[in-house]
């Protein structure tokens, strides 16, 4: 009996442990707000030394400052830059107001349609006709020698400018389960009476050959993982080949061997450092003081009430920590898992009447569709929309049509005060 009493006491103590353990499990799975902040200042010296990451544990040998330093590194003609390129370093296009943000830089894409109406990538002749760059819509604005300079052929009647995008907080975007994006897409026609229907596409994950995943990066959702995006941008924007994009765009004026991006002393290549930097950045923050105003709060309500939030989704929760994504090539770390982010995007493709006619990784019907641009960090943008051709918030809103026509009609029915409140809300993002 005494022995049983002792057992009972131990059991009581253990019941407490059970309760604590259960709470720990529940707590570890409960979504929490993702950290935000513009905390990667672009410094002239000691790049990255004043930066603060989102807390993600980086691979052995890596630091956040080092990853940012390599993100800001400028390649040169004495190294692996080019032969054709748009910029010398990632930071040239992703910098405002801090490294990883947006910029005023646009890139040029061209192409044409065949007799069936399908988009066709151009073949761009260079070096006075001696060489050509086939099957590529991107036309680089720069080259390391005159012979390699690309020019738009007269046959390419589809020409589009596209702004470079923010990459801050993209680690959280990568950690969104593809099924979450698909669920948003499936719900949109129900929310909008069939007018709005985001297109979800799956694209190859370069680091997991044969695997596909929901696209979410780039104006056409042409990439699904940050490592794939890094390799793509490194080749196409800076002309640096890597293990995932092993062949340079042209051999004209080329004096380096492919792949150019080799592992350094940490055992990682530049594309790994780029991905590490993007994954470890905080999400763009709101202007808390402005957001707390009555005007912004009312604007926030109007934003949802008139339907903006059907596509500019205010809140998405990332996949739990430990989820294997990117075709098995990446596991969501604790810092990125089960995080609530406020991107104001659905990361789906839509036709709002501003489409550029270009097809990349998606099917032909994506020619005039663009990814809903995330509105986080919007207050740092002076020019708006994919082509930067809108200079006011009102003008950008009024450019939305087609799928968004009903929502814009709702906007046009607002009073001036309500519109002002809505724009105050946008200016707080």
């Amino acid at each position, binding site marked *: 009996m005494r022995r049983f009493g002792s*057992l009972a006491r131990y*059991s009581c103590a*253990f*019941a407490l442990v*059970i309760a*604590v*353990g*259960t709470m720990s*499990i529940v707590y570890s799975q409960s979504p929490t707000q993702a950290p935000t902040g513009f905390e990667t200042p672009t410094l002239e010296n000691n790049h990255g030394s004043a930066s603060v990451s989102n807390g993600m544990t980086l691979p052995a040998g890596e630091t956040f400052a080092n990853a940012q330093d390599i993100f800001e590194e400028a390649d040169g003609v004495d190294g692996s830059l080019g032969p054709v390129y748009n910029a010398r370093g990632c930071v040239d296009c992703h910098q405002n107001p801090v490294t990883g943000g947006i910029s005023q830089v646009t890139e040029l894409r061209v192409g*044409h349609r065949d007799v069936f109406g399908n988009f066709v990538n151009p073949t761009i002749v260079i070096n006075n006709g001696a060489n050509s760059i086939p099957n590529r819509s991107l036309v680089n604005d720069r080259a390391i020698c005159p012979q390699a*300079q690309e020019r*738009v052929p*007269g046959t*390419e*009647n589809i*020409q589009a*400018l596209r702004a470079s995008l923010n990459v801050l907080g993209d680690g959280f975007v990568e950690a969104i*389960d593809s*099924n979450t994006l698909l669920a948003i*897409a*499936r719900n*949109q*026609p129900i929310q909008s009476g069939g*007018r709005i*229907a*985001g*297109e*979800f596409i*799956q694209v190859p994950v370069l680091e997991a050959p044969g695997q596909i995943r*929901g696209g979410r990066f780039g104006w056409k959702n042409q990439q699904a993982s940050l490592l794939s995006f890094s390799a793509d941008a490194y080749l196409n924007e800076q002309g640096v080949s890597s293990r995932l994009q092993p062949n340079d765009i042209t051999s004209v004026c080329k004096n380096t061997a492919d792949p150019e991006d080799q592992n350094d002393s940490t055992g990682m290549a530049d594309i790994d450092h780029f991905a590490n930097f993007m994954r470890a950045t905080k999400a763009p923050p709101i202007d808390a003081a402005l957001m707390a105003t009555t005007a912004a709060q009312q604007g926030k309500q109007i934003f949802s009430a008139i339907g903006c939030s059907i596509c500019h989704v205010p809140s998405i929760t990332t*996949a*739990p*920590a*430990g*989820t*294997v*994504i990117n075709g098995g090539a990446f*596991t969501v770390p*604790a810092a990125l898992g089960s995080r609530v982010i406020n991107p104001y995007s659905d990361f789906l*493709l839509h036709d709002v009447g501003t489409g*550029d*006619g270009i097809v990349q990784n998606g099917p032909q*019907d994506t020619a005039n569709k663009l990814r809903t641009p995330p509105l986080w960090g919007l207050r740092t943008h*002076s*020019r708006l*929309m994919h*082509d930067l*051709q*809108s200079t*006011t918030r*009102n003008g950008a809103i*009024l*450019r939305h*049509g*087609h799928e968004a*026509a009903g929502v*814009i*009609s709702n906007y*046009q029915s607002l009073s*001036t005060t309500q519109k002002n409140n809505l724009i105050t809300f946008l200016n707080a993002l």
Partner: protein
Amino acid sequence: MKICVLAHVKLWLIGSVLLLMACDARPNRLAEKPIESQVWAAKTAVVAPAVPSPPPTPAEIYDTVTRVLGTNVVVEGKKPVALTGDFNGDSFSDLVVVVTPESNKLADINGELANWQIQAPRRAYVPPRSAEVAVLPNIPRPERVKKGEPLLLVIHGDGPSGWRDPLARQTYLLREVAGDSLEVGKPSAALIRDFGQFPSARDVICETLGGIPGVIYWTGASYAWHAEEQETRPKPRFDSARNSTDRQARSASIALPAGSSH
């Protein structure tokens, strides 16, 4: 007694498992569930029209302008000057009407949050063709409608009903381009040479402006003016879409506002 002991053992076992799960530093092994379809998109309710829409009646024009702009502008004459065509290349019929601003509504028309965009096609930015580096211009100053100046009002259509659809409210007020001999046309060889072929079939607004023939065309972001060389324009695709009575009403030229010749 035996049952009680067993219950406690069970409790210990469950507790041990939970404790181990809670203490496990490794994240749980989960995987993104594969999605079978490579592409998923629902059909939208908006579909392209099967046949061109009939020409507008004066009553329809008055009603549409009132629906979109209220009483801020006046439609000229009893037989308004109007054109219909697909000017932005989305396959939906758009409406163009010559209007003048109500003099006591200029503040509303030029309002920062107005429901329309005021543009000056003669000052529109068009990226240079075949340029290796295109530098965007400085942000232009906002265009402001002046008292009494004639404007081209463009209402983009939405869906099969085009500009007649109640949701068709995307509106542009074009300054300094309300010229003579307004007609619907197709992009000329000169325009295609200078701008490049358009990504989709579309109409252009042909007119004579200050004695110079030219066209107003949609760049994808704004309306722009292109002075045409003297050449034969392609025949309009939607000849029937143009209001034939407008041609007679259009015989009198509209005076250009000051400063519009540059």
